[in-house]
């Protein structure tokens, strides 16, 4: 019943609030430090773009999946096959993402990270559009420490917010677009410790956070110390109780059910078959 309830719950969540990136329940995460076009003091520079020419077969636009080289990418564009409205004679799509300096800051916050120019054109430079139903999306990653941001598009001299969703790994955000151009992540409020790459820049060393946050090396050391201390206390405590009598690593040391029946038998435990609550000493 628990299994069925869990599957039903997962299905419901996936339908009602589908993840725009694979639902990574867990996993090995490789996160490069944020690469700036105009790095603030102590931050990494070397922001790069990406580009590709994608051939068109027939009159249906192909799959477009371009991302910058960082891990995870700082800017990506994704369009399923058939997303774009192609003018007659289209033989290839030119897709590019490039970091650019910001001309102007937004009025509803500050730019978090780089401004990226997204271009999707035909081989002769005709800009392409997509209907909203095609769900063409751009994904942008914010610098470290940015938890909430909105993707905004720079158009006609001002920044315009788009409907933005979290996109998996913390600090990554997604927006559905119908046109391309210059996009940036905008964080509410004044700039924090991370300077933006544009005119809203304010200096601050990376990782320091606001003055209220502890240095991250301290968190790292404290976390490791906490884990080691807890493990040590656990080991000593269980040893003093005469052995763990605990769970098997890869199965049951108990009279478990036959697979498929769903019923559970009694659970005799090792260590003398001692039952009762943990901690009760003889």
């Amino acid at each position, binding site marked *: 019943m628990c299994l069925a309830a*869990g599957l039903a719950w997962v299905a419901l969540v996936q339908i009602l609030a589908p993840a725009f990136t694979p*639902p990574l329940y867990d996993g090995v995460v490789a996160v490069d430090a944020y690469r700036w076009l105009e790095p603030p003091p102590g931050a990494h520079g070397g922001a790069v773009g990406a580009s590709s020419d994608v051939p068109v077969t027939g009159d249906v636009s192909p799959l477009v999946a371009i991302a910058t080289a960082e891990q995870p990418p700082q800017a990506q564009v994704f369009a399923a096959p058939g997303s774009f409205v192609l003018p007659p004679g289209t033989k290839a799509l030119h897709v590019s993402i490039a970091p650019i300096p910001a001309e102007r800051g937004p009025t509803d916050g500050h730019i978090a990270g780089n401004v990226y120019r997204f271009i999707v054109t035909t081989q002769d430079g005709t800009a392409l559009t997509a209907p909203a139903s095609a769900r063409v999306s751009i994904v942008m990653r914010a610098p470290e420490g940015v938890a909430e941001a909105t993707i905004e598009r720079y158009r006609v001299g001002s920044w315009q917010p788009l409907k933005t969703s979290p996109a998996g790994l913390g600090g990554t955000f997604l927006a559905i677009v119908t046109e391309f151009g210059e996009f940036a992540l905008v964080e509410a409020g004044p700039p924090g410790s991370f300077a933006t790459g544009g005119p809203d820049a304010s200096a601050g060393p990376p990782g320091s956070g606001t003055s209220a946050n502890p240095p991250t*090396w301290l968190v790292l050391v404290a976390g490791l110390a906490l884990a080691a201390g807890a493990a040590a206390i656990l080991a000593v405590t269980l040893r003093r109780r005469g052995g763990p009598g*605990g769970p098997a690593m890869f199965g049951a040391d108990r009279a478990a059910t036959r697979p498929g029946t769903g019923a559970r038998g009694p659970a005799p435990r090792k260590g003398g078959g001692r039952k009762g609550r*943990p901690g009760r000493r003889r």
Partner: protein
Amino acid sequence: MTALSRAGNRAAASRLALPLLLGTGLAGLVAARWTATIEGTAGGLAIGLAFGVGLLALALAGGTRIQRPPYLRSSIVGGMLGGVLLIALALLGMAVAGRLSWAGVAAGPSVGPGAWVAAGFAPWAAITVLVATAEELVLRGALFDATEHAWGAGMAVVATSLVFALIHVPLYGWHVVPLDLGVGLVLGGLRLITGGVTAPAAAHAIADLATWWL
């Protein structure tokens, strides 16, 4: 205070001790991993390896012991089936979101189509399996048993599902909590049915491995 109430208090404290210690150790490891990840202290694989080893140590300290389960093959098959179901539900979500492209899935990782073998799949997969298995040893192993011992199987499933969801918040954000609560229930259900951690570990590992392609 009578001897009986003192004994009752000690028993209550004792019931809390193991789960709290396990939770504390887990919190420490998660905080360390999060910090190392965002600071870029080391590569993702190295951080994952350290995290997995730390979880294994915590599981062993928490009483988990290695032994062959009576229904190993059935547990593995059940776990694989559970993992496939979780992947199917993920594909359902992507289809609903309009982001399911079989061409993209077949190409390999979301970046660098066609290069998944050359792109270091083997070490990534090994460490991913390590982390998934080690998490299950802690959550559906030591913590599940400690909680079940104290408060029963139902509470054990709920508690381990909650912890499972919470440990993913630092890296992924609060929006993953509803989904991971459900996944925790699925893995907890596998734990209840099979009586061990083989099935949830297999399901967890398969779901994680699938993200190379999704």
